C-alpha cells in the first residue's frame, strides 16, 4: 500500500512539475521574434503598455493560435490550452494593469463611407487594400527605427482575433509609441470611426481569398526531379553549362557526403552543384534573411541502379515554410529557374 501511495505522490508531483511555464514557452517559441523581454524585434513589441492595455487575452490567444497567414507570425495550433494560457499569462505579466475584457459587440457603420476614409487616412500606412506595411518585419527587410510596421488588416488571422470594439478603440486612441495616432485627436468623429471599422470588417472576404492563394502550393511535391538520359559525368557537365547559361555562377561541385566521410571516401555517385546569382540572392535575403538556409542554390545529381537523376528543393513548397507571402514571387521565380536547369541538363 505504501508503494501505491508513493506511486501516486510521484505521479502527481510529476504532473505539477510538468505544468506549463509561460516564461519557458515564450523563450522557446516567441522570444526570437518578440525579444526575450517582449520588447520586439522581428515581431511586435508585446511589452509596450499601449499594446497590452488595448488588447484582450482573447485577442492574444487567437493570435497565437491562428498566427498571421503570410505575415511571418506562425500558427501555434498544437499548443495545449494550458500552454496557451501560460504564454498569455507571461505576456500579461509585463503590465500591471488588468487586461481589457473581450467585447464582441458588433460595431455598425457605413462601410462605403469607411472605405473613403480608409483611403484618405489609413491607406498610407496600412496599404490601399489593408495589406499592411511593406516588409514583413524580418530583420533587414525594413528600417528598424520604427517599433512596428503597420499590420495587415486584410489578414484572416488578424480579423479573427480582433474584435470590432478593439478595432474601434485602437483607431480612436491610437497606440502610443507607434506611428498609429489617435484618429479622434486627428479629427475623425466617432461615427467616422465606426464606418472605418465596418470597412475593415468587410475585408474578411478578401482575407479568405488571400488565405486560399497562400495555400495554393500545399500539394506541391517536396522536390523537383528529372531523369537524365546521360551518364553521371555527362549530366554533371550539362548541368554546369545550364547553370552558366542561366547567368548563375557555379560556386563549387562536391559530393553529398563531403565532410561526413574522410576525403577520398565520398560516394562519387552523389554529386552536388552549388551556384548563385548574387543579384537574386540579395533580393531574396532583403525580403527575408531566413531563406539563407536554402542558399546557395543547389542541384543534386545521383546515380542509382545505373540511372541518373537530378533533384532540387521545390521553392514553391518551401515558400509555405516561411509564412511570408512577400517571398512568393521570388519562390515562383526560383521554381522556374530550377525547372529550366533540370530541363536543359537533361535535354
Amino acid at each position, binding site marked *: 500500500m505504501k508503494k*501505491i501511495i508513493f*506511486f*501516486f505522490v510521484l*505521479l502527481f508531483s*510529476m504532473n505539477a512539475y*510538468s505544468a506549463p511555464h509561460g516564461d519557458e514557452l515564450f*523563450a*522557446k*517559441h516567441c*522570444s*526570437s*521574434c518578440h*525579444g*526575450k523581454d517582449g520588447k520586439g*524585434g522581428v515581431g511586435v513589441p508585446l511589452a509596450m503598455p499601449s499594446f497590452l492595455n488595448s488588447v484582450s487575452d482573447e485577442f492574444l490567444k487567437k493570435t497565437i493560435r491562428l498566427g498571421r497567414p503570410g505575415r511571418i507570425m*506562425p500558427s*501555434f495550433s*498544437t*499548443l495545449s490550452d494550458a500552454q496557451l494560457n501560460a504564454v498569455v499569462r507571461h505576456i500579461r505579466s509585463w503590465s500591471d494593469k488588468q487586461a481589457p475584457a473581450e467585447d464582441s459587440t458588433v460595431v455598425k457603420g457605413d462601410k462605403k463611407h469607411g472605405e473613403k476614409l480608409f483611403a484618405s487616412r489609413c491607406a498610407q500606412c496600412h496599404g490601399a487594400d489593408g495589406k499592411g506595411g511593406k516588409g514583413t518585419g524580418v*530583420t*533587414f527587410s525594413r528600417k*528598424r527605427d520604427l517599433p512596428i510596421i503597420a499590420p495587415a488588416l486584410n489578414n484572416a488571422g488578424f480579423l479573427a482575433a480582433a474584435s470590432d470594439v478593439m478595432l474601434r478603440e485602437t483607431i480612436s486612441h491610437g497606440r502610443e509609441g507607434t506611428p498609429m495616432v489617435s484618429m479622434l485627436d486627428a479629427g475623425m468623429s466617432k461615427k467616422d470611426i465606426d464606418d472605418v471599422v465596418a470597412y475593415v470588417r468587410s475585408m474578411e472576404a478578401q482575407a479568405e481569398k488571400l488565405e486560399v492563394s497562400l495555400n495554393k502550393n500545399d500539394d506541391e511535391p*517536396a*522536390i523537383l526531379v528529372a531523369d537524365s538520359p546521360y551518364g553521371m559525368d555527362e549530366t554533371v557537365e550539362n548541368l554546369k553549362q545550364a547553370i552558366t547559361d542561366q547567368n548563375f555562377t557555379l560556386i563549387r561541385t562536391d559530393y*553529398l*557526403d*563531403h*565532410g*561526413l*566521410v574522410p576525403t577520398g571516401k565520398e*560516394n562519387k555517385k*552523389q554529386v552536388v552543384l*552549388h551556384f548563385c546569382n*548574387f*543579384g537574386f*540572392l*540579395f533580393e531574396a*535575403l*532583403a525580403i527575408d*534573411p*531566413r531563406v*539563407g*538556409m*536554402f*542558399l*546557395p542554390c*543547389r542541384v*543534386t545529381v*545521383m546515380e*542509382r541502379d545505373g540511372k541518373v*537523376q537530378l*533533384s*532540387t*528543393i521545390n521553392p514553391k513548397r518551401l515558400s*509555405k*515554410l*516561411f*509564412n511570408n507571402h512577400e517571398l512568393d514571387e521570388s519562390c515562383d521565380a526560383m521554381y522556374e529557374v530550377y525547372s529550366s536547369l533540370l530541363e536543359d541538363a537533361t535535354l
Partner: protein
Amino acid sequence: MKSLMKIFIRYSASLLMLAVALPSMANDLLMVRTQQTFPEAMLTLQTSIKDHGYEITRVQRIDIGLTGMGYKTDKYRVVFVGKPKEIQYLVDKYPVLAAYMPPKISIFAEHDETVLVTANPMVYAEMITDEKDKVLFRRWESDVYSVFDDIRAADD
C-alpha cells in the same frame, strides 16, 4: 478495493504514457536570437553541435559580395550539420531527401545580436513514409531545441 486501485493505476499509467507520446509543437521554422556577438554565437553553436554528437560538414559564407550591394551585414553563414551514418541511410532509402541533406542552420548578425534559424527536422519527416524512420527526425528536432537552449543559456 484492490481491483479498483489496479484500474486506477492502469488508467493513470495510460494517461502518463499518452502525455509522453504526444508530439511536441511542430513549428516549421525553429529560431533563436542571442545577445552574443556573431563570433561568440558561432562558437557556442559549433560547440553545442559537437556536444550533441553531430559533425559540421561545412560552413558556407552567404554574404560574399553582398555588402557591396547594400546588404546590411557581412556576417551570414550556413552551417551544414549531420551524422554520417544517418544522412547516408536516409539518402539511400529516400532519394527525395537528397536535395535537403545534410540539414543546415543559418546564422546571421542583426545589429549587435545574432539570429539562428533552421527548418524543423519534422518538415523532412513529412517527406518519407516509414513511420519508424520518423523517430529519427523527432530526435533531430529535440536536439535542435537543445542546441538552441544552449545558445540561449549562454546569454544568462
